[in-house]
């Protein structure tokens, strides 16, 4: 297994995509959170509680959950690019026990997702504390709690990367897989929130579970308000973590089993 993981890391680092991805993570963490914190949630449309409140801090950090499609897309590319560029010919020649290749990808991209999450959370922390200091606002949550929320989000990014690997193994076509991952995670889940009946499923979906991690209900509440419906009740942070873990296990199982019997033609 060690040579396969080594090879996957070499593959990951062979192009500059990893650098670009970390740059995006820093941009989203430092840039997006910094911007939201400097503008202040009280100035959002519709207005939200300010950063001096717990809800305000959670609202700002919760937006990071909407960027989960990026690590998911990276995980998806890890598998689909093998089929797109036909490197799968050599990969399965060198490792005919295909589950080992996918296991190596899951481990490698799980670690890559962790680095992404750490950069995202680290830059977010710097931006949030920096913006609060610049504006002279006392944050509505203790620093330790904020770091914990960001750590949860970092772990969620690992889960999404692994989820992406699983979807890539399931849908080998690169464009189709990326459309599904980005389309669903970026917009699809929120659209589900607008459908009566289906919206009650939201807390059990990856997006709902991620929102539960930080108790981020701002967007769901805003949608409920616009649709004059009851707000969606999220599960507890622990349950959210377990649901995400469940999706990770499901994706890993799919990734390990799906390519086993499929012909490479």
């Amino acid at each position, binding site marked *: 297994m060690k*040579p*396969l993981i*080594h*090879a996957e890391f*070499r*593959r990951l680092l*062979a*192009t500059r995509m990893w650098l670009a991805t970390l740059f995006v993570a820093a941009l989203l963490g430092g840039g997006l959170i910094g911007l939201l914190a400097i503008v202040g949630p009280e100035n959002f449309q519709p207005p939200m509680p300010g950063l001096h409140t717990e809800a305000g801090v959670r609202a700002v950090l919760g937006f990071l959950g909407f960027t989960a499609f990026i690590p998911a897309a990276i995980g998806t590319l890890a598998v689909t*690019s093998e089929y797109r*560029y*036909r*490197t*799968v*010919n*050599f*990969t*399965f*020649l*060198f*490792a*005919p*026990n295909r589950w080992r290749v996918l296991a190596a990808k899951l481990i490698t991209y799980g670690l890559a997702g962790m680095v992404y999450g750490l950069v995202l959370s680290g830059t977010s922390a710097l931006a949030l504390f920096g913006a609060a200091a610049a504006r002279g606002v006392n944050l509505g949550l203790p620093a330790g709690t904020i770091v914990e929320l960001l750590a949860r989000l970092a772990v969620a990014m690992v889960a999404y990367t692994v989820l992406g690997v699983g979807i890539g193994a399931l849908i080998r076509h690169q464009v189709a897989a990326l459309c599904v991952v980005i389309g669903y995670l970026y917009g699809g889940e929120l659209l589900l929130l607008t459908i009566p009946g289906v919206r009650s499923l939201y807390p059990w979906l990856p997006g709902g579970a991620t929102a539960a991690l930080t108790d981020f209900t701002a967007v769901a509440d805003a949608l409920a308000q616009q649709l004059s419906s009851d707000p969606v009740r999220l599960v507890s942070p622990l349950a959210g973590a377990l649901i995400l873990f469940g999706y990770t296990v499901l994706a890993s199982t799919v990734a390990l089993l799906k390519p086993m*019997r499929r*012909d*490479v*033609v």
Partner: protein
Amino acid sequence: MSGIEVRNLTKRYGPVTAVDDLSFTVRPGAITAFLGPNGAGKTTTMRMMIDHVAPTSGSVTIGGRRYRDILRPTTVVGAVFDAASFHPFHSARDHLGIYAAMGGYPSGRVDELLELLGLAEAAGRRTGGFSTGMRQRLNLATALLGDPRVLLLDEPSNGLDPEGMAWLRSFLRDLADAGRTILISSHVLSEVQQVADDVVVIREGRLLAAGSLRDLSSTSQAVLVRTPDATELGQILAPAAYLVEANGPQELRVRGLDPSRIADLAAARGLRIHGLTAEHPSLEQLFLDLTGERTRP
């Protein structure tokens, strides 16, 4: 020794039978050409050899083992399929480095192969900008990382210029002379003829012929008969020969009869023969005879 044994191999895709109860062996120390019309099942068969495609029934063993049961399989088998199996943004060195890591080979092996295949100067360039010849060389380099005893090449001369093809021929000959097993599928029959020792011919997934090129050629050998009595002689030879056809107003091409028998039959009827020449068939001729492609509309 690592020969390839294909036993009763069958692959069905729904109602379509791509490979049908195919059995043949490929011996070490020789270059075996794997021939057949487009869609005959060559690539499917070769992919079944390395577990890329699961057979519906039957088996393939290499050195007595199924591919997936071989420990460090790329030390035994190297295979090249698509013309380009590289990430276009990876350099040749990156590409080989990834698979050297995967196979557990030292990075020095990458430099060795880049040198051997004439890619040293292009090692740092992205493969996306490679010519077809360079891609084929990089494909070969990847397949050779583990210094395998068996090499499977699916249409390796596709897109190669004459110089590249000459290089490939001598490269493969050197490998075969060193005792390696080489199976090469190709539709460029004139190219294969110059390099193949053995031939396996399939059509519609079924075996048509397998054996040494020399033996198969002799069964398909023709005799050119120069005679001013072509029409009469043709009528006399036709019942005894496999094929009699006019090759000009005063010449017949005859298969299935040796020159002395033709001379005897002509003499018995008092017909004149001005020349008898044995015609060694080209691989293309042999291929057309075996596959019956010539008789197709």
